[in-house]
């Protein structure tokens, strides 16, 4: 399914000449676990260009969610700490970038929800159970815009209608528990987009939903995306990436392992980890009884990451130097980036 999906989709290549809306540079995030500092994100860099859908893929514990949350400084502190790096946000392509990580708190609040909005994995718990849906969407308008309550209410109703909630005006006074999971995620999307943010960060938005609802939610996100608006889609679901993303960042062990367009990545994966991930997908038309490929071993705990390449303990093409020397993120001629010693020569 993944292959054909990529085939059908005309991959939008980002206008790389435009300045990225969001540039994450050397982001380091640590957590204090039982008096030890553990690095969850170890120097991650990537760009989000206007109008694109950027996928961040990785297994649980790869640091993808932490990266996304750090962009809005939503990491709980303590135990977390953003130990270094920059998150540069540009309001428009010719504007001076501002570093979200350095913003005074009140200015950070203006970015949250207004410029960069987030939706989360669990629609069941992400809404406050004791307030009406209308109040929660309205609140998002009122905090960023100088409008009166009636106007905010009208905006909320309009937004709920746009995300496909029938009878939206009436449902404003309903509580979250009166909505199904898919409907709640629609409410979340409405709430996130009501202030027309430039970037929507979606942290596994469909993981908790059933398959048909998943497709609807992804479709809705695509519909709602404006021309210059970007989506950062965090997921472990490669099918979702193949269908929805323009470019993909593959993460493992708190590091970026490979970056490329969805098309390139699916047709010509370079990093052994990406290859492994793709090989472990069941192919349509595979013979019954055929065994699925699996990446050997388990994701290492972030408390025991290897010294060299983070993937060396499970890599099928591992070399001696991989255990001691971590490869840099090699930039190849076609703009792809791979963190693997195998591509050292190609990069030169």
């Amino acid at each position, binding site marked *: 399914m993944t292959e054909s999906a990529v085939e059908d989709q005309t991959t939008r290549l980002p206008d790389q000449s435009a300045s990225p809306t969001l540039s994450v540079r050397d982001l380091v995030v640590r957590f204090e676990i039982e008096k030890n500092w553990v690095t969850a994100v170890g120097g991650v860099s990537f760009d989000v260009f206007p109008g694109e859908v950027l996928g961040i893929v990785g297994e649980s514990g790869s640091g993808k969610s932490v990266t996304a949350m750090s962009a*809005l400084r*939503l990491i709980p502190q303590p135990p977390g700490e953003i130990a270094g790096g920059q998150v540069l946000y540009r309001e428009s392509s010719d504007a001076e970038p501002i570093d979200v990580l350095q913003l005074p708190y009140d200015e950070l609040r203006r970015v949250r929800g207004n410029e960069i909005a*987030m939706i*989360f994995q669990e629609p069941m*718990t992400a809404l*406050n*159970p*004791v307030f009406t849906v209308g109040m929660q969407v309205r609140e*998002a308008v009122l905090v960023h815009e100088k409008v009166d309550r009636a106007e905010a209410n009208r905006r909320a109703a309009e937004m709920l209608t746009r995300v496909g909630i029938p009878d939206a005006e009436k449902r404003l006074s309903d509580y979250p*528990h009166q909505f199904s999971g898919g409907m709640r995620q629609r409410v979340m999307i409405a709430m996130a987009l009501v202030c027309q943010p430039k970037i929507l960060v979606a942290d596994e938005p469909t993981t908790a939903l059933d398959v048909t609802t998943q497709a609807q939610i992804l479709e809705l996100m695509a519909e709602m995306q404006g021309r210059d608006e970007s989506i950062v889609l965090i997921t472990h679901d490669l099918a979702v990436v193949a269908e929805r993303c323009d470019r993909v960042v593959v993460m493992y062990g708190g590091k970026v392992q490979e970056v490329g367009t969805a098309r390139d990545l699916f047709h010509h994966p370079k990093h052994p980890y990406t290859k492994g991930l793709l090989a472990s997908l069941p192919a349509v038309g595979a013979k019954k009884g055929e065994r699925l490929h699996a990446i050997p071993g388990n994701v290492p705990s972030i408390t025991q990451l290897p010294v060299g390449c983070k993937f060396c303990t499970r890599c099928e093409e591992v070399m001696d130097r991989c255990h001691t020397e971590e490869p840099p993120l090699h930039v190849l001629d076609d703009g792809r980036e791979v963190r693997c010693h195998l591509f050292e020569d190609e990069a030169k």
Partner: protein
Amino acid sequence: MTAYFVRRFLLVVPTFIGVTLIAYTIMRYVPGGPLDQLKMQARAAQAEGGASIGGEAGAIPEEALEAAKKAFHLDKHVVVAYVYWLGDLVTGNLGESYFFQEPVGKLVVERFPISIFFGLTGFVLAYLISVPLGIVKALKHGTSFDFFSSATIFIGYSIPGWAIGTLLLVFFAGGEFYDWFPLGGFRSTSYFELPEFVQSWEDPADVEDDFGRFRWNRLGYLSKVADQLWHTVLPVFCYMMGSFATLTILMKNSLMENIGQDYVRTAFAKGLHPRRVIFLHVLRNSLIPLATGLGRALSIVMAGSYLIELVFNIDGLGMLGFNSIVRRDYAVVMGVLAINTMLTLVGNILSDVLYALIDPRIRFQ
């Protein structure tokens, strides 16, 4: 949901009957009842005037015994006697006190305001202090403030209210240490009981009636307030201690649990001010378990506390109930018990109503 509450109210009837029937039965078979007391009185009278009467030791006339038996329904089966009591109750008649020779209803109505005054003051203060304290403790979790306040609270919690009351009286009510507060009572009953500074505000002649008796109502407004507060501090402190620890820790834990919830992250991600996130989104959820305790506190607030009222010599419902048990004053014991039971049962239903009102997720079937 209406059906649920109708059912709950209907269930009050059998529960009430169960509780009062058991109490009635126990009361009747515990020694020291009215017949025993009659016999004892006769024996005492005989001991005093033994020389003049002589002969039959401790005998009372058979007719007197029969009359007493009849008056207390002791000649009937306990269940039958209970039904008589219940029948009277339904018609609004709580019976007459054996000790006071007054209707139980009157005794209760006289004391209700006193118990409510102390109960309500303690209750309101407990919430007013526990809720903010719990919030601060949650926000400062793990700091030395959190630690020391917890330690203090738990020391207070582990000592029963009446024991604290006794200690307070020893230390602050003119014992060997400080003479700051009165030994007890609801209000001063004579001019010389008033605190000295209030005495200086009032002329003794002004507060006496034509017969030279002290009239509290004739005190000036400020003097009334001062005297009332002066009598209130220690007992109310004891009332508070009981619920204080539970409330504070419940508030703290509830708040901390809610701070970790996903919806809090959503609220922050929207760009809300932390004040709004904590005091609106989190607090509203954290108050749910506390608010449901409101209904259950009804009986404590209105019916007073047996032991605290006793320690502070407050003539409220609690003390009336306690003394009547000691005196085997059947009608009063049953009357106070009936009121207490009713308040507890209604309080429980009230808790459920409150729960349904504040938490939109709750729908009783």
